[in-house]
């Protein structure tokens, strides 16, 4: 499973960081960073929630 962020859409609202701090971080430059591009399966539920909750629909999951 791969985390994909469309940076043309990402608006750094940081909702994903609140849901899955293991996967996402917003730094002081106001940009979103992905901490684990290929997260373990146990983080799937959190990642799916982050996908649903992203206000700009910028996050998606690519399955191998």
């Amino acid at each position: 499973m791969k985390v994909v962020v469309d940076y043309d859409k990402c608006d750094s609202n940081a909702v994903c960081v609140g849901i899955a701090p293991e996967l996402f971080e917003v730094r002081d430059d106001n940009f979103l960073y992905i901490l684990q591009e290929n997260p373990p399966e146990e983080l799937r539920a959190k990642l799916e929630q982050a996908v649903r909750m992203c206000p700009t629909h910028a996050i998606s999951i690519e399955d191998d």
Partner: protein
Amino acid sequence: MANLTRCVVVGASLAGLRAVEALRRAGYDGAITMVGAEAHLPYDRPPLSKEILAGKWEPERAGLRESGSYAELDVDLRLGLEATALDPGARELQLDGGGRLPFDGLIIATGARPRMLPNTPDLAGIYTLRTLDDCRALRGEFEAGPRVVVVGAGFIGAEVAATARGRGLDVTLLEALPVPLARALGEEMGEACADLHREHGVDLRCGVSVAGFDGAGRVERVRLADGATVAADVVVVGIGVTPNTSWLESSGLPLRDGVVCDATCAVAPGIYAAGDVARWDNPLFGEEMRVEHWTNAVEQGAAAAENLLAGPEGARPFAPVPFFWSDQYDTKIQYVGSSRADDEVRVVHGSVRENRFVAIYGRNGRIMAALTFNWPRLLLDYRRLIGERASWDDALAHAAEVG
């Protein structure tokens, strides 16, 4: 678990769609019907005042799901059709045109509609902005390079003003209060929002009220109560919304600026509400609220669906920290919590002058809300503290520690 076979969602909205998705995610395999007054598939409203109005996105991009993906949800979509009444005893909806729709589980997600100024004459060029159709029409007007007057400097009015300025249009922004957003954010922070407009060339006039509109067939001027007039080719009125509950008036359900729910979003047995239309008891704040934000529609839509399936014994209170964002000019404004005009406000990071800051709001020794300009990273710290019911002193100590 409630034993349901016929769920109906009224409102083909963000909250309504998230409710449908949550029903399926939770394994519900009975029938779902979604009734929507607009002819469109569910779409997202935030871009209507931003990217789409700016001409950067095509309107189709607002769709919340690919049209082909509704089959996966196995939902019977009834679009362009209004629910006109509800009989909770008979477990039945009445639809425009006389149709009836029985249900055993119901989610009310009918949203809200823009308020209009009283006695607005029937002149072309006067708009509200709520729907995709409103947005398309207004965007068409913007292409002709009009002089724009925006009535109301709340978040919709502010975003329309910012987008219009971004397109190089002349904008006058009229606000009835002495300071915009003073009731939601307090005077000092409302002033920070006012500065953004002024710095970007908007003619912001506060403490003025609109007396009427002049024009022959099409609006030409806005008349103010003090006798002044403002030339206008297009007027956008953004003075708040009214929850869509008139169809529920004969239902006997409790209505008070919204449909009144308990802490689990239940209105009556098997009937739940979500989104802009729902007024519920948020146990985190110990107060009733009705929240018009995007994130709330997403979370409450899902929570209402999960609670409907769980039944009264299994239902969980819905206790979110409200969150919204607004993009105006190059400033990202974000807010978490629930503040009032008379809360104590303190800037704890950055400064208003630099247009980058975090302000926190306190009441009765507790942190209630936080507002950030261009500082998304720190917002989450305060969101967590608000969710933990942290004290004002702990919030200040945290701020000192982060520096």
